[in-house]
């Protein structure tokens, strides 16, 4: 396989660009050529699903913004020619999850109800990435309104395939982001993580994904799902690129009152300082959990997949050899309540956020004659939303209804306090554990086949079993590749940390990357890229 410019991490490309070894236009062209080779037919709201002729294709992009990208690349090359600093992400092809507004582009949320919506402004993290020199290639597919863990619920079909096996899902909801970065169709991507939507697809596709602390990155311009859980964050080839993206996107924003003004550290500083003296925990509560049996659907206590278990424990050994202190048997007893709490909290917030789509001010309007405004709402929302938004709205309304609210919503918010308390305790420097990070698997299984889970909304939700506690608690989580299972599918491991400890998590992740840099699995590339 020939390594093209589009296969390199951003930090190598920026160096080449600054050294005059290539131009931004060449990096862009290399990425466009890759898209041409592997993308296949563009997803649309008219297609029924994946046809046989789509097998082997990625279908990551809902919208390509090629002309915008060419102009941006040209400006970068001009700036360099004039001796100006074009920014830390100069010339880096960026895929934006289509849940972010990007001025002048269709911003669809993967939904028919927003399929014709053109954003009048850009989201803050997108603005910051473009100001740092990133070249916006387009908007990538996702589960409808981010509601899913496989990307199959998008109204834009065919949904993306996993570059490592296109008959399997890339994960979700940032499935287009992870698939595009893994296949060389973008070098970096901006995703969002509400229950694991950056980390789970990153794990499934063998790339790096970081969910920042809630409030670290502005949500301005992000089409809202669950406002107390949504976190924009990076999807990249390696840890260094995730650190660079964090330096660019993190920080206060006058347009988002929940974006904190705490100073943003330089996430690249000390990145390669290693893990000597750091305390890294592993918890039995992340190895054996209650989740539905795929056949019967019954909730039962089961271990995570054996290959994944092995990789997590192997990572602990590697980090121990590098000088980390591994703390075993860390207890987080409320981990098992993560999904039930999320089922309640996220639905209530989603229902609140999704009442605004009415077919009147923007988006899809039912085109046939209707009797009155009420029927217009019902028909527009009935046709415009797919089953996943409908499920979330209905459940959110049910569990927050006056007669049920105390038993469901309030209880879930109280259990959320206990989940947060688990993390407060293990990361408290005064506590016995006093951890710098918690090492877990990112997912209980590797990527599952397309069609194997979608439709069973309970089983699908449990794909986020190991990632959702961090969202409920607000703490940061980093997923990095850690090898492959016996079927050749990527395995991800996750590091969780205290609020605003992204730099430390990246340092731990980078240490693992350095220690495993020469392992044979690091050389593997998806089969589909062998002939491009």
């Amino acid at each position, binding site marked *: 396989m020939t390594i093209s410019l589009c296969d390199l991490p951003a930090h190598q490309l920026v160096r080449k660009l600054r050294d005059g070894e290539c131009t931004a236009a060449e990096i862009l062209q290399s990425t466009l050529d890759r898209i041409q080779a592997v993308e296949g037919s563009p997803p649309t709201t008219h297609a029924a699903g994946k046809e046989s002729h789509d097998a082997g294709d990625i279908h990551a992009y809902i919208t390509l913004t090629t002309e915008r990208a060419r102009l941006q690349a040209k400006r970068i090359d001009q700036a360099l020619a004039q001796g100006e600093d074009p920014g830390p992400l100069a010339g880096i092809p960026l895929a934006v999850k289509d849940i972010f507004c990007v001025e002048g582009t269709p911003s669809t949320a993967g939904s028919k109800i927003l399929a014709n919506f053109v954003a009048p402004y850009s989201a803050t993290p997108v603005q910051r990435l473009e100001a740092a020199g990133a070249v916006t290639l387009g908007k990538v597919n996702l589960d409808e309104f981010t509601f899913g863990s496989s990307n199959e619920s998008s109204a834009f079909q065919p949904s993306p395939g996993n570059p490592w096996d296109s008959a399997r899902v890339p994960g979700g909801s940032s499935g287009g982001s992870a698939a595009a970065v893994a296949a060389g169709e973008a070098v970096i991507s901006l995703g969002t993580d509400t229950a694991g939507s950056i980390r789970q697809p990153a794990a499934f596709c063998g790339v790096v994904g970081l969910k920042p*602390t809630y409030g670290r990155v502005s949500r301005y311009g992000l089409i809202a799902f669950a406002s107390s859980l949504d976190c924009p964050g990076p999807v990249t080839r390696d840890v260094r690129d995730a650190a660079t993206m964090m330096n660019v996107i993190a920080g206060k924003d006058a347009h988002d009152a929940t*974006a904190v003004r705490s100073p943003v550290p330089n996430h690249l500083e000390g990145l390669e300082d290693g893990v000597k003296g750091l305390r890294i925990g592993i918890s039995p509560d992340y190895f054996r959990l209650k989740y539905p049996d795929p056949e019967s659907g019954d909730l039962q206590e089961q271990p995570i997949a054996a290959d994944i278990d092995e990789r997590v424990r192997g990572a602990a050994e590697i980090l121990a050899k590098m000088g980390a202190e591994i703390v075993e048997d860390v207890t987080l007893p409320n981990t098992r309540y993560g999904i039930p709490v999320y089922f309640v909290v996220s639905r209530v917030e989603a229902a609140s956020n999704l009442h605004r789509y009415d077919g009147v001010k923007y988006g899809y309007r039912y085109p046939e004659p209707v009797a009155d405004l009420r029927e217009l709402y019902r028909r527009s929302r009935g046709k415009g939303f*797919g089953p996943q938004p409908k499920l979330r709205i*209905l459940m959110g309304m049910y569990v927050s209804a006056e007669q049920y609210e105390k038993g469901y919503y309030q209880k879930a918010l*109280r259990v959320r*306090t206990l989940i947060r308390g688990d993390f407060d305790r293990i990361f408290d420097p005064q506590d016995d554990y006093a951890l710098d990070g918690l090492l877990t698997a990112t997912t209980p299984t590797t990527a599952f086949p397309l069609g194997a889970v979608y439709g069973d909304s309970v089983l699908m939700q449990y794909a986020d079993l190991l990632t959702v506690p961090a969202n*409920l608690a607000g703490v940061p989580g980093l997923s990095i590749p850690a090898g492959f299972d016996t079927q050749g599918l990527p395995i991800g491991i996750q590091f969780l940390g205290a609020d605003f400890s992204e730099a430390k998590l990246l340092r731990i992740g980078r240490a693992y990357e350095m220690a495993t840099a020469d392992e044979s699995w690091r050389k593997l590339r998806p089969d589909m890229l062998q002939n491009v």
Partner: protein
Amino acid sequence: MIAVEVIVTRESRDYGLDEISEDVFRHLVELAAFHLEDDEAAYLRRELNGQLKAIRELDAIEVGADVPITSHGVPFAAAMRLPLRQDRIEPSTAADDILEQAPDVEERSIIVPDIPHEEIT
């Protein structure tokens, strides 16, 4: 296979739970302003009851009123927050762009069908 507009590939299960009865479901659908076909309604109700079964896992834990609620995970101390902006009118140049998004516009007004009402005599 469920005949809803967006493909659903896995047959949904019967969870043996009917907490959300047909009547409750119809009420929710009316409040949510959805027009649903019968097969889609049946699928959604079955899934909602399945999700409630998962939510019932919370029954296993006693949580007293002394445990405060957490509306978002990270404590949001005043020192971390930006002061609220002044409530100031600022000119916007995007009004036409925004109006262009509306499905039906006439002379810069958004057109809607009749609003349900009763004549007062």
